[in-house]
């Protein structure tokens, strides 16, 4: 198991290198001069030129990439933000907890709504509860996040005045964003739980459990759920990764200063070091979450555990 984890962690390195190369290339083929954007349209040309020189943007692409990798590997340094002049890592670490909190809350909302709804739906297939929760789940995935956020603000902040429309520091401020972010994932988790449970409930060993005279609730919650959990956990992991990187829209609607928005702003500001650092960071987190999910599999399923050896 340890060996397996170590191997997976080692395998992350080429992936991260690939990610950084793709991002670097993307950024460099994107039209727009970072120096010019940073200094604004009113800055004179000499200043822009000087700034380009300072940033090392006049060097050939591969040299710049080489420098980036060298600094990263040797000094664990991702450079400084073009705008704020802060070290990139600091810039990201300031924002990351916010996004992490947001995504976690979103996932918590999603799991709390999704798994029970999915289980009940599956055990009472085609009942009214099943049908309503499936329609609700479908609506949940169908609603664009940004629109849902607007509507929630309109209702809870403007009409009712119960909850603030922006920020993410007090728990009151967290409710709407978490709800906005969580619902689509909740929907996906509900559907996954339902179909996975349906699949498992048909299995022979569930029949065996019933033939033992086991109570239905135990059959469902102990025998079925644990077996059904693997695809559900996969989805939760994927969703979590997705929420981490994809919270952009929610973040902008609720004026939350998270990594997502930092990325979008940095992409449009051509703040290369921050984009690189940020994407690498998100990709790393995403990959680690995936790894954690894979490790979790082993705890859920002894068959998988034996493969990891």
């Amino acid at each position, binding site marked *: 198991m340890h060996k397996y984890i170590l191997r997976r962690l080692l395998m992350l390195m080429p992936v991260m290198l*690939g990610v950084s190369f793709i991002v670097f290339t993307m950024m460099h083929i*994107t039209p727009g001069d970072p120096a010019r954007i940073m200094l604004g349209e009113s800055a004179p040309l000499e200043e822009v030129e000087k700034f380009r020189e300072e940033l090392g943007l006049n060097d050939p692409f591969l040299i710049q990439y080489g420098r980036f990798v060298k600094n990263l590997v040797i000094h664990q340094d991702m450079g400084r933000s073009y705008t704020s002049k802060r070290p990139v890592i600091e810039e990201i670490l300031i924002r990351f907890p916010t996004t992490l909190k947001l995504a976690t809350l979103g996932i918590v909302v999603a799991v709390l709504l999704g798994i029970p709804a999915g289980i009940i739906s599956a055990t009472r*297939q085609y009942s009214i509860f099943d049908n309503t929760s499936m329609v609700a789940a479908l609506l949940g995935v169908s609603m*664009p996040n*940004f*629109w849902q956020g607007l*509507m929630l603000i309109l209702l809870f902040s403007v009409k009712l005045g119960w909850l603030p429309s922006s920020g993410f520091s007090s728990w009151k401020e967290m409710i709407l964003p978490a709800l906005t972010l969580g619902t689509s994932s909740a929907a996906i988790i509900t559907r996954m739980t339902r*179909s996975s449970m349906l699949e498992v409930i048909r299995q022979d060993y569930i029949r065996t459990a019933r033939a033992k005279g086991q109570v239905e609730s135990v059959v469902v919650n102990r025998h079925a759920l644990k077996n059904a959990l693997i695809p559900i956990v996969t989805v939760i992991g994927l969703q979590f990764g997705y929420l981490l990187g*994809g919270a952009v829209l929610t973040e902008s609607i609720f004026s939350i200063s998270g990594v997502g928005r930092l990325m979008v702003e940095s992409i449009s500001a051509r703040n290369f070091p921050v984009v690189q650092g940020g994407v690498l960071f998100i990709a790393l987190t995403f990959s680690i979450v995936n790894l954690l999910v894979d490790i979790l599999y082993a705890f859920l399923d002894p068959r998988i555990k034996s493969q990891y050896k």
Partner: protein
Amino acid sequence: MSQTKTLIDKQAVSINKKRRSQWLEVWRRLKKNKASMVGLFIISLLVFAAIFADFIAPEGFDDQDLYRRFIPPGSNHFLGTDHLGRDIFSRIIYGSRISLQVGFIAVGIAAVTGGTLGAIAGYYGGKLDNTIMRLMDILLAIPSILLAISIVAALGPGLVNVMIAVGIASIPSYARIVRASVLTIKDQEFIEAAKAIGANDFRIITKHILPNAMAPIIVQATLGVANAILSAAGLSFIGLGIQPPNPEWGAMLSAGRHYIRDYWHIATFPGLAIMLTIFSLNLFGDGLRDALDPRLKD
């Protein structure tokens, strides 16, 4: 020989079911699923609206009249007018063209590229598989919305570029799905049977593997269209979408959000349009999944 002949004649037992190909069978099962038929119906309406927008829409999508801005929904303008005095209903009708185009073409790009890569990786395995899948891992590790944003940033906004961006961002999921189903099909005996009668790789992939791998691809594609439409709308929302005055729903919503407190209809209807579209695609996709995989149904 004579004995076999009598055998045929004595095969008195009827053939159980009417003759039908598998696709007819799927269609029959699908028809029984009311929800997915509702979905299909709405999608058909949308496709119809998209094709015949010129006849259905009371006005052009860009017929501005600055003297009739912000008219609420009512008899003159079914869904009201927007901040530039354009008929929202007409714009939504024309908008279905863009959304469906983006949805289908982006998915087309993703499914063809991803599918091909996945099929090659799954069928040949080994180093090729490793290389392709690691590449997909890399793409997958970059959050798709950020990937799409940077692709649009690099290519510039516009319909085609949005389709490309959204398409590229979802390549890995198709590659994975196709690879997985190719892997399961590859080991089935009928593939070996094909080899035994001398079929080459190309024939095996195209005639034997892909047709059987279609089910998950089709389901993924239907749901993918929904996702692509959402992604495109999201891109538009942050200003990286289709060029105005083209009535992309996400862009309409984004433009309308400034006025949402006084003129709720401007941002609400495009949002509803997106929701309805995604909803029906999902209904249909779910139904299709069940129909293609009879195991899932009791």
